[in-house]
């Protein structure tokens, strides 16, 4: 028997980093299944390639940096999965690998690894691919197109030139053209609710963002439900913006972040021709997070002083 001395507290919440990552991955399973259901084998192969290549790059970088293997903390697999969910289902698989290489090597590890990266790795990877291969990144197929002899390319509902009309119900179930995992609002909400219950997702960022989008849409006379359901808004709100490392830490910072993002995304959608501005907006705002946190800290201290008044005579 040996006695050990250590500082309190002497027990810890069993939920550590890897179990959080695992929970998020599990929360993305319904979305992935919906993607596979609607887009078939291509979607499945994109997801598998993406996750495996992300893990492979992580191992590679770990070896080069002489680190302990960090694949078991789940963050690399999560990046791969998230990236896959934002890609068109019929993208060539080598592009998926390339995108993951960019995400893991450049965005994550060149900045110092998990906890140090400024930009969301999955979204940056996606943006990299959109810039490098704009055509492949905008070739969408209709859901269930797999069963047809020819892939019919289609536009996502948000593209300005889109002539096809989709109902909000279609958007809710995900029965529309789009990225692998962005189309089914139902599946995304399912995962998000579960994460809320587990205490992993904080309401502040998605809440303030979605509320802002809703009211901006109302203000400009558009269908707010359409804007909430279309174009990866929900996947972005619950799984991209809330990425711990690249979102603000402070309570006030989070609210500010959500609101600013809402305004930014709606401005892009209303006044520009970039059909999928969400990813750009999130990565842009990732860069502003340090500033938001500064503001968040200042506001927090200020609010603290207001509610906990210093009593004079003690």
């Amino acid at each position, binding site marked *: 028997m040996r006695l050990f001395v*250590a500082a309190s*507290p*002497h027990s810890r919440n069993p939920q550590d*980093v890897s179990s959080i990552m695992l929970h998020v991955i599990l929360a993305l399973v319904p979305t992935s299944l919906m993607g596979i259901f609607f887009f078939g084998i291509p979607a499945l192969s994109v997801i598998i390639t993406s996750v495996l290549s992300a893990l492979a790059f992580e191992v590679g970088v770990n070896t080069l940096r002489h680190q302990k293997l960090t694949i078991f903390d789940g963050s690399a697999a999560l990046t791969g999965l998230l990236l896959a969910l934002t890609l068109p289902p019929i993208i060539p698989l080598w592009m998926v690998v390339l995108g993951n290489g960019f995400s893991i090597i450049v965005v994550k590890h060149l900045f110092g690894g*998990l906890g140090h990266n400024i930009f969301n790795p999955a979204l940056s990877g996606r943006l990299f691919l959109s810039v490098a291969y704009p055509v492949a990144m905008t070739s969408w197929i209709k859901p269930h197109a797999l069963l047809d002899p020819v892939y019919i390319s289609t536009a996502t509902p948000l593209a300005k030139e889109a002539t096809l009309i989709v109902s909000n119900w279609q958007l809710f179930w995900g029965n529309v053209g789009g990225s692998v995992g962005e189309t089914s609002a139902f599946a995304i909400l399912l995962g998000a609710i579960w994460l809320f219950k587990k205490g992993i997702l904080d309401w502040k960022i998605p809440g303030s963002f979605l509320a802002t989008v809703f009211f901006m849409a109302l203000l400009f006379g558009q269908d707010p439900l359409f804007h909430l359901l279309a174009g990866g808004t929900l996947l972005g709100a619950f799984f991209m913006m809330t990425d*711990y490392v690249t979102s603000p830490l402070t*309570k006030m910072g989070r609210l500010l972040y959500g609101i600013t993002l809402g305004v930014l995304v709606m401005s892009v959608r209303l006044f520009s021709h970039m059909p999928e501005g969400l990813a750009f907006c999130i990565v842009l705002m990732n860069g502003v997070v340090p500033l938001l946190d500064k503001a968040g800290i200042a506001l927090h201290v200020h609010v603290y002083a207001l509610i906990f008044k210093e009593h004079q005579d003690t």
Partner: protein
Amino acid sequence: MNNHKKITGLLPTREAPAPHELVFPLLQHTGTPALPIINVGDAVKVGQLIAKASGNVSANIHSSVSGLVTAIDLAPFSSGIEVMSIRIENDHKYYKVPMATHTRPIKETPKEFLLQRIEDAGIVGLGGKMIPTHIKLRPNKPIAELVINGAECEPYLSADHRVMVEMTKAVFTGIEVAMRILEPQTVFIGIEDHMIDAMITMRNYALKYKNVKVIPLPSIYPQGAERVLVRELTQKRVRRSPLEAGVIALNVSTCAAIGQAVTNGMPLISRVITLSGTQLEKSYNYRVRLGTPIKTLLPELSADRASKLGDLRILMGGPMMGLAQHSLDVPIIKGTTGVLVLEHTVYETQMCIRCGRCIDYCPVFVMPIMAAQQGIQASECMECGLCSYHCPSRIPLVEKIRLNKIKQQMRQQPQ
């Protein structure tokens, strides 16, 4: 958080075994150490004053057994340092000094008499802070609300729970004494809602008083932390001490000790503690004579069986705020709420993943990671440990905040 209370909360309190040698540290309270008034070789009796309060903030210390004073020297102490202590050899005869009972109704007793009794008995806050009670009960401003802390939020601990069930009368006498002295408008008794039996007993007793309210509280750590409890019960937000807002908080065990001191003239020589933990086969609450070294209470850890046990952490107090002990010779003191034997686990610290959980969980609205990194609001932290508990990266936030606090204090008061 699993609160592990069920193990001990429903079992009756037992008498702890008495040791052959007891150790009475002279500093079992906040303030200045007490002054020994006996010499080595003197014979003492149960309840005899052995060290007298000295200085403005201090408390008396009494012997809990009869026997001989064998030494006055440095002895191990729960905070890891050595403290001047009186060692007494137990003769197992338990001769008592006469104790003056008091039968007049509390309402008609002069306040000064009551305060004197509390001071003589050497009562300090038994919840762990160990502020001398006679000092606390002489506030510099009128008191609107008296808060009685029966929340006992630390996992494993259930000593206060047993005190409320088994010593209800003494607890209420103590509350009555405090009411007589402070004359508050309302008295709130906060009890965590898992202690159903305590709630029923206390409610029944409280019916006799018209301004005493027993309030169930959700069983969430740190419900019993003074600032959280006061906020919950009185809606007053305080920054440091509840006294700022005209509130005083007393622990139920302290009230029981006050009750016994006033009616029976009984000095504070024993207390109820919880003996529990994952590494102990049997967990109970024990009434322990102060000064008992923890090895007497833990025969399981004796040399012959110890080899089977792996690496342990022995805590004084709960798992969230308790102190890990380096020696089994450390005595139980007035502020010891429990002794826990847990396994020693090492957590690997990772980079902060900026999840913000520490901020979301802090009960007093501090930003723990900022307090740890930059010292912002460090002085407002009450070291409840919740931020370290929840940090998925296992960053020892409380430890860092404590360091920052000390640094800031040293900067403020250069010698």
